[in-house]
């Protein structure tokens, strides 16, 4: 796991209601982590703070970006790249 993935897993673990020692890899579904919509709002906020990005997320809409840990990591990588392009 690269730095982005490691940081995201840390944030997920911090916000899991149970079993924080559970093994997490890129294919892990967020729904398997006992993460609910309110937790996801907190997680999005934490990720935004950590990476200095803004994630277009709406708890009322389905989003493929938040199905698996890998999809979150990819979305964040993409946004970090966009953000560094914009500031370059």
């Amino acid at each position, binding site marked *: 796991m690269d730095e982005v993935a490691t940081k995201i897993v840390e944030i997920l673990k911090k916000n899991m*209601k149970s079993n924080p020692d559970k093994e997490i890899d890129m294919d892990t579904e967020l729904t398997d982590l006992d993460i609910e919509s*309110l937790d996801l709002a*907190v997680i999005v*906020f934490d990720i935004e703070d950590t990476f200095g990005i803004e994630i277009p997320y709406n708890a009322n809409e389905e989003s493929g970006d938040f199905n698996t840990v890998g999809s979150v990591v990819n979305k964040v990588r993409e946004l970090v790249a966009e953000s560094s392009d914009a500031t370059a």
Partner: protein
Amino acid sequence: MRDIFIVQFAGGLADRPSLSLVILNNLVGFKLAKHSMSKTAEQRRVVVTGQGVVSPVGTGVDKFWAALKKGESGIGPITYYEVTDDLRCKIAGEVHDFDVQKDVGDINVVRADRFSQLAAKAAMEAVEQSGIADTLKKDGSRTACIIGSGSGGLTTLETGYRDLYRDKIMRTNPLTLLRTLGSSAAAHVSMMYNITGPTFGVVSACATGSHAMGLVYQMIKYGAIDAGVAGGSEASLNWGAQRSWEALFVLSPAGCFPFSKKRNGTILSEGSGIMVLEDYEHAKARGATILAEVMGFGMTADAGDMVHPKVEGAAGAMKLALKDAGLKPEDIDYINAHGTATKTNDVTETNAIKSVFGDAAKSVAISSTKSMHGHMLGGGSLVEGAACIKAMHDNFIPPTINLNDPDPDCDLDYTPNKGVEKEVTYTMNNSLAFGGLNTVAIFGPAPK
């Protein structure tokens, strides 16, 4: 008034046939008044089976009580925020022996405002002592959770507004709203223990915890519920709140000196007091240890002034509580006074006690434990209620510290500086809030 309660609560029992039957049996003795539709029922006895305290003199009832017995103060220099030069009062009652991760752990509570965290800790102690958790796991529908706060998540709001308006951080923590809600402490505790009955917060400034207890007491008494977690919590020690209290000229820069000639205001503190109340038969049936009986409760409003209390309002609440308890003033052995150390409260409360107690006012032991733990606002009533119950268990009156030079207008026995051993059977807990909102609870020994 009682008749109204019965009608309202009985209305909610339609889906509980067995209980409806019990209530119906009780109502066989309907006393049909001259005006039809009026009815009375047997009233149930209400007992305390658990209590929990988070306070500046100690988290946990035993630690809190040990500090009160020794006359220890929990008031010290403010450490929670930068103490700017413009603050007149640079002291407060902070809670330093509480760690939400270690002491509560529940992730929902860890994320909540501190007022909910303190309530959760006090509720954990009370529920654990009562041993009612397993009963609630099976069915929490006959239990209430009423926990209030004077100002709810005020510190969360202050932080949010500072970020937005001053620091121009245009992102708001997604939990800001939920942390701020005055009902969030009650909601969190209901989730912790599967309490699915009446759950909400109440608000009455410094009488909040007592009003919560009074509601639960009455609901149990008239059969709407069998048990309830009740109390208040406050954690509003922040710069903005300190400034707003100072603007009202009610804070002392020096300390909390109830009933003293030198008293010059109160000291803000934080904390939570929670009790588990239960129908006596319900508690007995499950073999619970009964700490005390709630003998009576009275509440009034001055309908006068926001900050100048009336003798009649406080006296009225004491009279109602005594009547409800079926006790005479001379039966009361100890009064835990509201005793805020403001100019007006202490004289008004003294005069109210005199007007209700008559000759017995001179012999009843009184103290303001706020002299030690400061003013926990909405969180204070049931912390002081815990002091009343411990006074009964220990036959010990906790002192009013900092009382070397009493105000001549405050001429009763306030137990100055040192606690005293005394047989204590019945205790009175006064809460007299801003706005003239008054509550008085009376505790007695466990029924035999």
